[in-house]
Every structure is written in structure tokens, then in C-alpha cells.
């Protein structure tokens, strides 16, 4: 059976060069960066180099603007809470996109319980914000605006540079979560006008266990994990040296390979989407069409009349690794809040599948996925009461309405005795 990994948004394999660079720091150069002897001083040098390499990937002015955390989640938490706590006296208002990652949304919710308020900027059905909405939401109490670069679910590229200009005019720092774009799209913190930027190497063939937070020196930021004076006093705790070294090398390679990565994945993205929509009826792409507003690695699909977890499981049994934003795959039984924010019909959200491409994927992989997925859809539709009811004219399609029958949602509400979401 062919194995096709299409979940690069969830994890990527470590590049052999990155692993080789990390290796000596496990058993040989195992020192603690706080130690003043040989073992400590050596890894301190390694730390500095990794800071320079990661700073270069996002065109930061100085490596001193780079803070190492444990992952993207911690970086988001530090950006949101660290800026909020640092500016408590100035004001307690935040502005964030409605489709930020849960690590941003839930940090904001935590602060709301502590007396902060937050304006959530809505998105278009394609998932894009209107920068003017951000400007309008800023008040004299606003201490931070958070707009992610690329959406983790639907691949939409937000107009961050425009937002950055508006924030600069109003003197409010902008935080850009680049977790879903770093290593796959160019990032320039100065062009973005960003005061804070986060990303993680595990998304671009680097190691897990390390996240990066860039902070422009002018932005005030306090620590949220308290203890020692590591990372300029802004992140206490023994540094994860091997992972940090790996982050540096992964960043360096990403910078070098960026054009090739974008070209390769854009080609496969187009081939995959064209193949799927040709071979499968009632399938919809969520988020912008492939092009300048969508990252080349992501396809977010809704296949009507069937549910996402079943699609995912059958894909897996056929060697294809994918993700889904369906409520059935979530521990909270809720559809992805991003799909809710773009106003996606619940039936389509339930039929959601997320495919994310990487460098190891080939044209043959893509053709195999198209062929296999068409069979999976047929199998599941054959099992689905909704497909039967659609064919009998009892319910209608959301994707390509025929004007016959009631809506899926209406039907679902009737049989469950409650509206779906």
C-alpha cells in the first residue's frame, strides 16, 4: 500500500541534517546554558547561533529579539498574556481575529476572566479579515492586536502588513502568529510591522519541544513562567538545547529552500484540488482558492452528505494520513471554531477534511489520493442516510442546490430535536 502523509500541519519529520546537528547536544555537549564552565559556555555559544539563525528566517533586526519557549502554544500564551500583564496600567483591551488558534483564543478567554475585554474581528466566508475592522476596534485602552499570518485550518493568508500599518498609526503592538506559515512562506517582521511574531520548527522539519517568540525591543513583555533568569528573564527554565540547536538549523534550511517548497507544494495543491473536484461531486474548498491568498500547503475540504472522521479513518486504512475539523474528531464534540467563524453550514463542517502537503509528496501520491478518496466518498455516501435522502429529493445540497427538498440542517434539527450549532 502506498503511504501518503498529508498532515504536515500536525507534524513534519525531522530533517536528517537537523538531527545530525542536534545529536552532539544530547550525550556529549549536555551542559546547562546557565553554567559558567566549559560545558555551559559551549552550549551558550550554540544558543546564540540558533538565535541568529531563527532571527534571520523572519528578518529580525537582532538575535536578541528571539526568545525560545517550549512550543507554539507557549509562545502564543506569552505574547498575549506577557503583553497584557506588562501593560495592565495602560489598558485592558485586546483585539483579535475570530479565527486565531485556540492557544490565542483561550489565552484571551483566560484574561477576560481576570478583567480584560476583547474584541473579536469577524472574517469573510473565505476566512479573511478586513483591516479596517481592526482599526475601528482599537480603543485608547487597547494594548495588543493579534492577527495570525496564515490560518491553521483553512490556509487563508491574512493582510497582516496592512494591519501592521494601521496598528503603527495607532501605536498599538501587533502580534502575528506565524505557526502555520513559517518555513513555507516568507516572513518579514518589519514588513509586517509586527511587534511580536511566533512560530515553531516542528512545522517545518525541525524538532518538537521548542517554540520561538520574536519581540521587538520596544514592545513591553513580562514573563509568564516564573523562575530563573534564562532568556533575558522572559522565560525561566532550563533551555532545551538540542531542540533549540535543531530549530536554528531547520530555520536556516527553510530559508534556503523556501522558493522550492512553495513551488513544489503549490503545484501539488493545484493538481490535488483539480483532481478532487473533477472526480467527486458535491465537494467544496473552504478558504480562499489556491493563489496569493492561500498557503500552498493547505486544502480544506467539505464533502457533502458524509462525515469527516469516517473519511479520515478510511483514508488512514488506505495509507493516507489527513486531519479533520469535524466535531466527531474533537474531544469537545464541537466543529472547528474556524469553520464556525466562516459561517460554514454545519453539514459541511461535519464533512470536513484537512489535507496539508509537504516536500515528500509526489504527483503519484496525489493521483493515488484522488483515486482513493473518490472511492471512500462513494463508500460512505452509500452508507449515508443523507445521500439517500438527497437522491430521493427529500433534502437539498448546500454546495450545489437543486431547489428541491429541505436543507440538511433543517432535517438534522428535526431528527435530533435541536438545531445543530
Amino acid at each position, binding site marked *: 500500500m502506498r503511504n501518503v502523509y498529508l498532515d504536515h500541519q500536525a507534524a513534519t519529520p525531522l530533517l536528517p541534517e537537523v538531527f545530525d546537528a542536534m545529536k552532539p547536544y544530547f550525550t556529549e555537549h549536555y551542559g546547562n546554558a546557565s553554567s559558567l564552565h566549559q560545558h555551559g559556555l559551549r552550549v551558550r555559544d550554540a544558543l546564540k547561533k540558533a538565535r541568529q539563525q531563527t532571527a534571520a528566517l523572519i528578518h529580525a533586526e537582532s538575535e536578541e529579539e528571539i526568545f525560545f519557549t517550549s512550543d507554539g502554544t507557549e509562545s502564543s500564551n506569552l505574547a498575549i498574556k506577557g503583553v497584557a500583564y506588562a501593560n495592565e496600567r495602560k489598558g485592558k483591551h485586546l483585539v483579535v481575529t475570530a479565527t486565531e488558534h485556540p492557544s490565542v483564543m483561550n489565552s484571551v478567554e483566560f484574561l477576560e476572566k481576570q478583567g480584560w475585554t476583547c474584541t473579536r474581528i469577524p472574517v469573510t466566508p473565505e476566512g479573511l479579515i478586513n483591516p479596517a475592522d481592526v482599526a475601528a476596534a482599537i480603543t485608547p485602552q487597547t494594548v495588543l492586536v493579534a492577527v495570525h499570518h496564515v490560518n491553521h485550518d483553512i490556509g487563508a493568508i491574512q493582510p497582516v502588513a496592512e494591519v501592521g500599518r494601521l496598528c503603527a498609526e495607532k501605536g498599538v503592538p501587533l502580534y502575528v502568529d506565524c505557526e502555520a506559515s513559517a518555513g513555507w512562506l516568507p516572513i518579514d517582521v518589519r514588513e509586517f510591522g509586527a511587534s511580536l511574531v511566533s512560530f515553531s520548527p516542528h512545522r517545518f522539519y525541525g524538532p518538537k519541544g521548542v517554540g520561538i517568540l520574536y519581540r521587538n525591543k520596544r514592545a513591553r513583555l513580562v514573563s509568564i513562567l516564573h523562575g530563573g533568569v534564562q532568556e533575558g528573564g522572559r522565560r525561566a527554565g532550563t533551555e532545551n538545547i538540542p531542540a533549540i540547536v535543531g530549530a536554528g538549523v531547520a530555520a536556516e534550511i527553510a530559508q534556503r529552500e523556501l522558493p522550492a517548497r512553495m513551488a513544489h507544494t503549490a503545484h501539488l495543491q493545484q493538481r490535488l484540488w483539480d483532481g478532487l473536484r473533477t472526480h467527486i461531486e458535491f465537494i467544496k474548498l473552504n478558504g480562499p482558492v489556491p493563489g496569493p491568498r492561500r498557503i500552498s500547503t493547505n486544502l480544506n475540504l467539505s464533502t457533502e452528505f458524509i*462525515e469527516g*472522521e*469516517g473519511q479520515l479513518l478510511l483514508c488512514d486504512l488506505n495509507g493516507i494520513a489527513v486531519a479533520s475539523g469535524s*466535531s*466527531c474528531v474533537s474531544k469537545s464534540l464541537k466543529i472547528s471554531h474556524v469553520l464556525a467563524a466562516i459561517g460554514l453550514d454545519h453539514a459541511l463542517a461535519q464533512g470536513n477534511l484537512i489535507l496539508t502537503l509537504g516536500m515528500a509528496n509526489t504527483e503519484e501520491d496525489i493521483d493515488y489520493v484522488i483515486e482513493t478518496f473518490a472511492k471512500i466518498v462513494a463508500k460512505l455516501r452509500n452508507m449515508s442516510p443523507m445521500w439517500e435522502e438527497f437522491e430521493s429529493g427529500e433534502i437539498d445540497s448546500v454546495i450545489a442546490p437543486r431547489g428541491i427538498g429541505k436543507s440538511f440542517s433543517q432535517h438534522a434539527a*428535526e*431528527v*435530533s430535536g*435541536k438545531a445543530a450549532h
Partner: protein
Amino acid sequence: MSETYTLYNPTVMDHFMNPRNMGDIKDADGVGEVGAAACGDIMKISIRIKDGKIADARFKTFGCGSAIASSSMATELIKGRTVEEAMNFTNQEVVSALGGLPPVKIHCSVLAEEALKAALEDYMKRHPEAAAEARQTEAVPA
């Protein structure tokens, strides 16, 4: 891959991959379609009754792996039971027969129970005489 990892146990996976009794019964004696408000899954079970017993049961499911497996298992378990016995059917039987479900997926087995009960009710609505009998039998142990 040398080893295969599965989200559900082998029994659940088997019923998901090779569902039993998938489909519809033409001119069924009872049809029940229910939806899970929580997640949006939909399940439809149709039954044929012969001599007060469930002669056949079929399902169609819009839902996750465990919803499909639950309906497959429920239809499998229920065949051959009397209408009265079927009225006492609970989701626990499905869970046990499947060898367990993840806690967050227990509601899928509940949906199967509800779909079956809805089909039985539909049958009884269409056959009031059977309903009366079933209620009578039910009343005895109560």
C-alpha cells in the same frame, strides 16, 4: 507498516470497515431516523417484523467510525428478538458487544439505541395491536 495502530479496538474497526446490515429494507415495518444534537450524527434504522420478532434490521449512518460500528452492531444484536425484548434494548449492550468505546463516543451507542427505538415506535404506530401487546408484556415486570 509492520504494526497497524487503530483508533478503536479491533471489533469496532471491523464493524466500521465491514458493516453488517448496511442498507434499507424495502417496505420496512418500521423506520426510525434520529440525530445527535451534540455532534450532528444521523442514524436511520429500518426493521422488518415477523411473528412478533425482528426478522431483519438495516441501518444507514451519517457519522463517525464508532457511530457506524454502533449501528452495525445494534442491528446485528437485535435480529431475532421479540418486539418486547427489543424495547428493553439499551446502548450498554452495544458497548459491551463492541468491547468498549472511548468515553467521548458512548453517545454513538445511545444514538443506535434511539434509532432502534424510533423504528420500533414507528412499527407500533403502524400496528396498534402489536403496541398494545408490547405494553402489556412490559407492564408485567414493572
